[in-house]
């Protein structure tokens, strides 16, 4: 099977996966208590009216009294036409809520990802080249410090120093500033710094150990014998093979970007991003918004895996899809 056919099959498979997930989500939602229905019943009970009657009335108004297969088909149609319903927690359509969250998350997560993927492997290779020297210890110490200190705590400390004591950056995040503006850089520099220092540790250690394996490999000796400059040798003959196993973490990295530790950072810095949105949707039982988030993460997961497989072939041409 060639690359084209492989991608087609993977995309088709992604469609099936999404259908399965959407179906499971429908079943779970069908059996989960509906806050609006519960509210109607509570109101009725508080007033001494019949809660059951109130439930039936509320279900009728929302079309929940129809046969389950009709509701399912209706649900499927809504999902695939992006009619994901209304977010009660935010009082806006779910796709709009997700897009808004993504808009603010992307502003710090894109630079975070780029910097992490650039700095992590570089520091790792640098450590490997200077293994067991003070430079290695310094780089490892730096990476481990960021990894060890909780983002939440680190963020508060940085805010205290740079926002409250020094006044260099604002405490309150302003969502209305232009994306590409100095003001936006000022207000995002701390969250990006916290996240980058928190995430390069793992990548740095993997790349350090991986690259150590290649530093004394035969092809490095050959390159050196041929007079290749050290920088070129490290970049082409060490960094490149190091990146192959490293790239397997990209999907996880992407997911972490949009949810993981960013929730806490968004809380500290007051950024109305996707992490806080999803977390609050969960704890506020905003079913539609939770479902929308689920679909977004499903999409990211499926597409991320696809991209990851394609990146393999670019980084390592020996990987072929002919046999798949």
């Amino acid at each position, binding site marked *: 099977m060639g690359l084209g056919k492989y991608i087609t099959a993977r995309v088709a498979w992604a469609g099936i996966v999404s259908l399965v997930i959407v179906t499971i989500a429908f079943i779970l939602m069908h059996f989960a208590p509906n806050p609006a229905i519960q509210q109607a019943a509570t109101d009725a009970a508080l*007033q*001494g009216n019949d809660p059951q009657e109130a439930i039936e009335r509320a279900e009728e108004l929302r079309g929940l009294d129809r046969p389950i297969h009709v509701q399912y088909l209706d649900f499927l149609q809504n999902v695939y036409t992006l009619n994901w319903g209304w977010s009660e927690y935010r*009082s806006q359509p779910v796709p709009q809520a997700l897009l808004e969250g993504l808009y603010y998350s992307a502003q710090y997560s894109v630079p975070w990802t780029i910097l992490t993927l650039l700095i992590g492997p570089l520091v790792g290779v640098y450590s490997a080249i200077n293994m067991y020297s003070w430079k290695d210890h310094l780089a490892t110490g730096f990476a481990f410090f960021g990894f060890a200190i909780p983002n939440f705590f680190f963020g508060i400390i940085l805010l205290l120093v740079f926002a409250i004591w020094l006044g260099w950056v604002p405490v*309150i995040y302003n969502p*209305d500033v232009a994306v590409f503006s100095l003001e936006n850089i000022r207000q995002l520099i701390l969250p990006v710094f916290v996240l980058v220092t928190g995430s390069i540790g793992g990548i740095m250690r993997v790349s350090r150990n991986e690259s150590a394996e290649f530093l004394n490999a035969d092809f490095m000796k050959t390159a050196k014998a041929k007079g290749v400059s050290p920088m070129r040798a490290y970049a082409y003959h060490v960094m490149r093979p190091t990146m192959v196993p490293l790239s397997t973490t990209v999907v996880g990295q992407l997911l972490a970007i949009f949810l993981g530790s960013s929730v806490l950072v968004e809380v500290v810095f007051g950024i109305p991003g996707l992490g*806080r949105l999803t977390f*609050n949707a969960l*704890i*506020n039982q905003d079913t539609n918004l939770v479902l929308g988030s689920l679909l977004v993460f499903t999409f990211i997961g499926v597409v991320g895996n696809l991209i990851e497989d394609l990146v393999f072939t670019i980084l390592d041409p020996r990987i072929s899809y002919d046999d798949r």
Partner: protein
Amino acid sequence: MRRYAKKSQTRFLSRRQWLAMVGISGTAAMAGCLGDDDSGDSDDTGDDTSDDSTPADSDSGDSGDSGDSGDSGDSGDSGDSDDSDDEDDAFSDDDDDDEPIDELPEVSGTYDTVTSASFETLNPLYNTEAGAGTAIGRTIDQGYTFDDNNELFPLVYDMNTDDGGMVWVFDITEGLEFSDPYGSVTAEDFVYQIEEVHKSDWANTASSATWGGINIEQTGELQFQAELENPQLLWPQTFDPLEYPIPKGLMEPYVMEEDADGMRQDKELLELQFTGNLGPFVLSDWTRGAGTQYVRNHEYYIQDIDWGPELFNGAPYFEGASISVVEEQASRIGALQSGEADAASIPPERFQEFQDDPNVSMYQIPQPYNTIISVNMRDNGWTTGPGNLFRHMEFRQAMAMAISKQDLIQGVYRGRAQPHYTWQPRFSRWYPGDDSIDQFGSSEQYGEDLARSKAEEAFNKSDYDYRFDGGDLVTPDGNQVELDLYHSAGQDTERLTGEFAAQELEQNLGISVSVEAIDGVRFSNDYWTGTPEGGSATIDGEEVTWDSPAPQNPGPRSVHASEDWDMSLVFGLNTFPQNPLTNQFFFDGPTCFYNPVGYYPEFNAQELFQQAREAETIPEMKEAFDQIFINVAREQPYIMLTFEDDLYGYNPDLVGPSEIFNNGWDLPAWHFEE
């Protein structure tokens, strides 16, 4: 046979009352959500009465936040104990708003505040959150508020009764205008809103449970009246008749279609585009999860009223306003320190630090939510052995005597709380007076000997052989009594309170108390509420039947939640100083609406509440309430500890805040010092 469960209409709860009963942390837990994300300190639980960003908004916030804002300060208490603070002044403002002023202040700056939770909706018809009520209140006034003397201060309408509270006449303020194309505010808008929306069975608005059984009639272009089923002298104090003006023309299409979702999602309602001259500001932006921004409303109607302070003539005095959602408490306080916010809630442990800071003005504001130890009198309580001692009044009194309120207030609350003796704060006009009530845990009624002596009275009443063995209180098996005490996870002040109480109970009563953290939602679902089963029980020789059981009182003591528990600090409750009649839902008999602990009053609570309900004058009502609160202080249905003050830091240049319960009623007059 006593049948407590046969309830009159006046015993049913509105959603507003329900939400006000347990405050934000409680209602959030009941609703299955966590509310404040940081929830790290008690100051956040104080957000419910007036959101921490906006201590100024008891005037115009949703009733959930202002619904309990005290009442006139003519408390009869003598305040003779050493801990008496300035409770008597809780309603009196040192600033005299009626003083003539030479020149109105300049309009300048923006009034910027921070809040911990984002707003679910700004639709005035559907909002039930205090924080969002504040955000809405920036743009549109509700019917009325209570001023610094706790007198009703008409905003959008005035309310009067001349027949003892049966018929209330609403007079709408002249000159109120909606935005185009809706024209003037008239009585028809209110009558339509109440009759066609709130009283409907499809709309499910925040006030849907408020107006049932009330006959509404338009009596003039700017006047309508409400005839109640039973007279209510304190009806305005319940905040039930508190509504926003909403244009009839805006609601009409949804009423015709019975389209609740459409009305809930209407853009004009959600983005407050109809507010005309009805509020101090106009909403310019609402970024979900980030907050709201406003610009000054030059046409604000309050400039033209002739019954308010002179300062209202130029109101508001800010060019704009904003409310930023900052979930992390440290960041909110940081915003106050850096000058990015003009007001923020301060935790008690940092009060002194900010009091010494010239860049912040600190205010200590009383509030009616209490800190109590709930003791489980149901069959799943008192897990240490047989014969639940919590059921004996003397044992509850012994517990109250064993915990020093003064030490608790000084040690845990840094002096920023008031002692809690009965189900009213001392600043309430309904407080019976220090001389009339037991003050367990205060200097005269605190100590090991007193507590042990009282506990022994309880042992004598018990069928089981509880006794003191050395210093320990032991079970019939000879083992030390061991009890658990739950507090909300992440609530530091609550944890410290629990640890202090545990230490006192160990020292003065010989009880080993294990203090455990628990998630509020889990506690509510698995420990606090049970499946309503009803049933009957014989109490004092009479059979009592639970005809209308609720999750918070699922039946007799044999009916209970799924998990066992002994004591809890998780839920503080409202004491309703404005309208204490609401306390009937806690105390008017074993079958009362809200009774998770299985308390059976030993005084005739139902009759006294009935007396209060039927009172035709305030003194009559006061007499009934005196008896109720004297008995509640004696019986300690919950072990009452403190009323924690709300602590706020303000921009020192801000003129207007005051340390009174209705702080913020005159927000339109607030301004920056020139």
